[in-house]
């Protein structure tokens, strides 16, 4: 072996050595737990929780189907499909609402004089200091049967009886939109703040109306921020657990609650694991779509 090859080998070894801590951490905290979940999803449920070490596709099967206890006929699981559909629909709706509220907010902050922006951003980040549970219960306080809104509407004579808002999809939506709004505002703000408004001026000089400028110059350039914000809201919405639990109760469950149920009172860990992986798969699909979108933005 000549000196050059030996040096190359030493170099490769040193690189592996340097990467070792990262490899260990990723294996220990990311790959290993995921592997456990994958393995569990292919095992049979234990009688009192846990798993029996016996290969079984029952967990995956139960994600979408259910077997009649008496005659073993197979049918689509309505309950699971509803929850799956609701999770995706509510997450999309949350993303849409935070977009509608967040983009103008971010625009407002980004167009303040530089010394005022820190103050507005500070207001946006304050909710992060409070526990998620406390914030969600505060929202509950607003919309429950004898909460702030109902009492206000009653006293104004707008309604005769309190509106039932809690434990509906609406309640979950309000809660999630409130909790995730800052995650939309911040990346969109960062994108608008980076935007060079002289470009808008140039467009305006070149016969573009304000709307044309917005469509052709401003939106394409802040789009990465809008997409990033949408992902930051959509992904945790899909896996949300605390908010649907408090705001939706047992009536308006989402995937996160279903997973928790299988590991808890359902005592069906393989199904819980399979559901968790389904959720992960949905997130991966969303992320791939995101990468496509941003890459497309760079091309054309």
């Amino acid at each position, binding site marked *: 072996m000549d000196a050059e090859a030996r040096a190359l080998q030493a170099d490769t070894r040193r690189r592996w050595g340097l990467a070792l801590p990262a490899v260990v951490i990723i294996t220990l905290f990311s790959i290993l737990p995921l592997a456990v979940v994958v393995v569990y999803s292919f095992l049979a449920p234990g009688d009192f929780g846990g798993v029996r070490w016996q290969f079984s596709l029952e967990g995956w099967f139960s994600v979408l189907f259910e077997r009649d206890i008496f005659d073993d006929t197979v049918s689509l699981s309505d309950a699971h499909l509803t929850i799956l559909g609701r999770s995706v629909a509510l997450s999309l709706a949350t993303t849409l609402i935070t977009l509608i509220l967040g983009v103008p907010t971010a625009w407002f902050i980004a167009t303040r004089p530089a010394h005022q922006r820190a103050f507005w951003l500070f207001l946006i980040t304050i909710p992060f200091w409070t526990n998620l549970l406390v914030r969600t219960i505060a929202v509950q306080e607003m919309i429950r049967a004898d909460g702030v809104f109902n009492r206000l509407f009653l006293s104004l004579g707008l309604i005769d009886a309190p509106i039932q808002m809690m434990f509906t999809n609406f309640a979950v939506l309000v809660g999630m939109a409130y909790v995730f709004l800052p995650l939309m505002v911040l990346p969109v703000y960062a994108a608008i703040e980076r935007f*060079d408004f*002289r*470009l808008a*001026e*140039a*467009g*305006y*000089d*070149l*016969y*573009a*109306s304000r709307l*044309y400028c917005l469509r*052709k*110059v401003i939106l*394409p*350039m802040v789009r990465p921020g809008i997409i990033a914000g949408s992902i930051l809201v959509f992904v945790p919405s899909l896996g949300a657990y605390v908010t649907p639990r408090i705001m939706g109760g047992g009536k308006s469950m989402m995937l996160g609650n279903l997973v928790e149920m299988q590991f808890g009172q359902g005592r069906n860990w393989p199904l819980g694991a399979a559901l968790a992986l389904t959720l992960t798969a949905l997130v991966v699909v969303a992320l791939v779509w995101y990468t496509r979108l941003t890459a497309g*933005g760079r091309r054309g």
Partner: protein
Amino acid sequence: MLDLRNLTKSFGKGDSAVTALHEVSFSIAEGEFFTLLGPSGCGKTTLLRLIAGFEPPSGGQLVLDGKDIAQMPPNRRPVNTVFQNYALFPHMTVAENVGFALGAQGRPKAEIADTVARMLDLVRLSHLAQRKSGELSGGQQQRVALARALAPKPRILLLDEPLSALDMQLRKEMQVELKRLQQETGLTFIFVTHDQEEALTMSDRIAVMNGGRIQQIATPRDLYDQPANRFVAGFIGETNFLSATCAGGQLTLPQAATPVTVEYADGPVTLMVRPEHVVLGTSQPGALTLAATVERLVYFGTDTHVHLHLADGSPLVARVQNGLRGGQPCREGESLTVSLPGEAMRLLPQEAA
């Protein structure tokens, strides 16, 4: 074609208001290369932004082809700008940038493609049509910005210090290129710069601005030879200033032995003379002769700057052209006589320096 009538612009309100333009009035003719020249903060960029429509004037009229356009938004004015930082759209290709204005006007696709091709040909960038603007060099970006502003055939092209970001070599090339474009298209250019050399080489007429006021509007030659005041004289080229007194057609300098005959109103005046007109030694009659001492010689290649001081210590610079086998025109420390030929002397009203 473009008339500015008492255009005024102030920023802020009440006591803190700052007036950036004081009643500016002038006219620009069709096809003219008109330059606004002045130091930074003189109001030239504000004036350009007023003409482009980015700022409304605080008072006065802006008349284009007989119509007051002072309150018209920029997207309705037949006036386009080449920005100092080019402001190209980074998410678009060169062709899309150039076609932007036509797209905004809702012109048919075929016409846009046709015009874009012609414009890119005009600025010699046809081969880069599909590049993103961020992938271009400074000079190329500059030419894309030009093509983009020219594509919608504006009545007037505004150029806001477009060459200031380029290095020396490229800047000289672009000066020639700009002049060629202006002559080829026959378009009216309003060019803003703080670079007097750039202004002198390119313009048909120059408006020198200072402190929000027009100091003088003239052709480059007239501006250099007959500056209206001390500011213009000092801003354009290098100049010697000497204090003098005019009485009964006689100009008296404290440093000069004999007065010379001039035609000027009585009173204290400033005598201005360009360094290249200062003659070492005596010259023809009618010239003002002064005793001076050579302080320093600075070699500049084509010529040598001779820094002198007069009897009372006031400085005077002479510029002597270097001959083929000249050697030095004089030695440092040498005492000699310098003369200022009559036609080289220009008298300006005395003002606080």
